[in-house]
């Protein structure tokens, strides 16, 4: 699903965010990227989502060489990816329903279909009763769950999460992780950047540790492949 070969990313000013990264994440796998702040976790996700392009090396996502994705095709490429963030990034001037519906609206899905899918996604994260609430009125855990619903509502093949539990206590974090695992079980490839080592270990999944832009360890968890 994701294949990095000798990937290098240098930011203007000569900062090397990633150095010679090679890795392979299989389709249907669930993996964690960990490391300290500034180790390159976010950069790695940004390269996969084509928010930025690698300076050197080759990245293949879902069978597609990212070098060959033209700028005008980036939107279509991204429609097969779901995103989640630490700061949930929900739009506060819209209801929970409208927030979750956004990827479907962008894809031009019909209204009846949107309603069905949004409600199904909200049901999976147990927030269907709050569909007409504003994100601001929800708790942090609930907001994160809305973020998950939005990330999976368009049934992406790949789910990218950047510190999804960064603001949550251990119990809520665990709930969120279990949700990710559920989606992974039905076939979504999940890649999570997180520095919460204790929890990551409990998940028993593959862990890729970055330090200063390089892969430090590559510990395969049980359960995938």
């Amino acid at each position, binding site marked *: 699903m994701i294949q990095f070969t000798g990937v290098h990313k240098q930011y203007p000013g000569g900062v090397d965010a990633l150095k010679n990264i090679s890795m392979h994440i299989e*389709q*249907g796998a669930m993996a964690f990227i960990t490391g300290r702040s500034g180790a390159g976790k976010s950069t790695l996700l940004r390269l996969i*989502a084509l*928010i930025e392009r690698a300076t050197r090396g080759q990245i293949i996502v*879902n*069978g*597609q060489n990212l070098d060959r994705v033209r700028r005008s095709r980036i*939107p*279509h*490429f*991204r*429609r*097969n*990816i779901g*995103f989640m963030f630490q700061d949930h*990034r929900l*739009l506060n001037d819209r209801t929970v329903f409208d927030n979750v519906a*956004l*990827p479907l*609206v*962008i*894809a*031009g*899905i*019909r209204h009846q279909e949107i309603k069905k899918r949004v409600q199904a996604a909200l049901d999976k994260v147990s927030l269907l009763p709050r569909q007409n609430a504003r994100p601001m009125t929800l708790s942090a855990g609930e907001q994160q769950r809305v973020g998950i619903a*939005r990330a999976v509502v*368009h*049934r*992406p*093949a*790949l789910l990218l999460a950047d510190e999804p539990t960064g603001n949550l206590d251990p119990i809520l974090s665990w709930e969120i992780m279990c949700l990710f695992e559920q989606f992974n079980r*039905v*076939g*979504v*490839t999940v890649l999570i950047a997180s520095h919460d080592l204790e929890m990551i270990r409990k998940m028993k999944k593959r862990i890729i540790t970055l330090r200063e832009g390089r892969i430090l360890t590559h510990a395969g968890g049980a359960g995938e492949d």
Partner: protein
Amino acid sequence: MIARSARPALRQRAPTFGQRFVTWCLQHAQALIYSLGQLWHNPLASLLTAAVIGIALALPAGFYVILENARHLTAGWGGSVQIAAFLRMDVGEPAAQRLAHQIAQRAEVLEVKLIPPEEALREYRRHSGFAEALDVLEENPLPALLLIRPRLDGESTRPADALLEMLKSLPEVDAAQYDQQWLQRLTAIIGIVQRAVMILALFLAAAVLLIVGNTIRMLIYHRRPEIEIAKLFGATDSFIRRPFLYSGVWYGLCGGVIAWLLVTASLMALARPAGELARLYASNFTLTGLSADISLLVIAGGVLLGLIGSWAALQRHLKAIEPM
């Protein structure tokens, strides 16, 4: 296309043209309603922007109407451009009549009217208020007068100029002049003002573009988080642009309608005094308002300027926003 995933992912197969068209229409309808909703959410700010556009459009439209009315008014007089040829005192009535007949034969002359000295004196006595003074005079001091209406085709007075020169050269004619030279001067002035209004309209159109552009720029920055998220979830540039373009169209449309209302209201306010003035001049002149095609032009102009202004703002500011 992205390679197939384990799960049936969305839109993996290329949609048919029909499906794409329906989607396209749907997204336009969404953008249209959404942009209208945005305006509605902030009624005062929206109204102020539309009002500024309206005033900017109303100024040239109003001037245009005033000019049109002036043109109508002078066109009514223009048909009566006359040359007054004063005959020498020693030309007798039979000779004057012969001359009038000769001149009337010419192709460039529409009508010749002879006013003998007696009639001229009667007229003068009636209008001047010098009746008693005239009684003192022993003989009529006024010459015979030929009033000649040249045949004019179009706006040009050139054939009449040639006729005037010819008349001046006649031995029987003492002096010849346009009866209403001031009218020609007025027409020339109107021409200049017309040009000035056009230039003003251009400046104001540029102002409308700037107003709309700036408003849309603010909207873009206000909605930056939303744009970032939309881009992240695969929104195309045209998807993101659409609601802003519609906002520009709404501003332009509202501005155009406000301009129309302003001009129409101003004309209604002017209609009575203008009618009063026309009555004093015993004229049947009435103030004409905005014609249907000019009304349409004002509103369509507003819409077009709104669209261009927002498009320009989007070109400049949308590229800078990339998901973080």
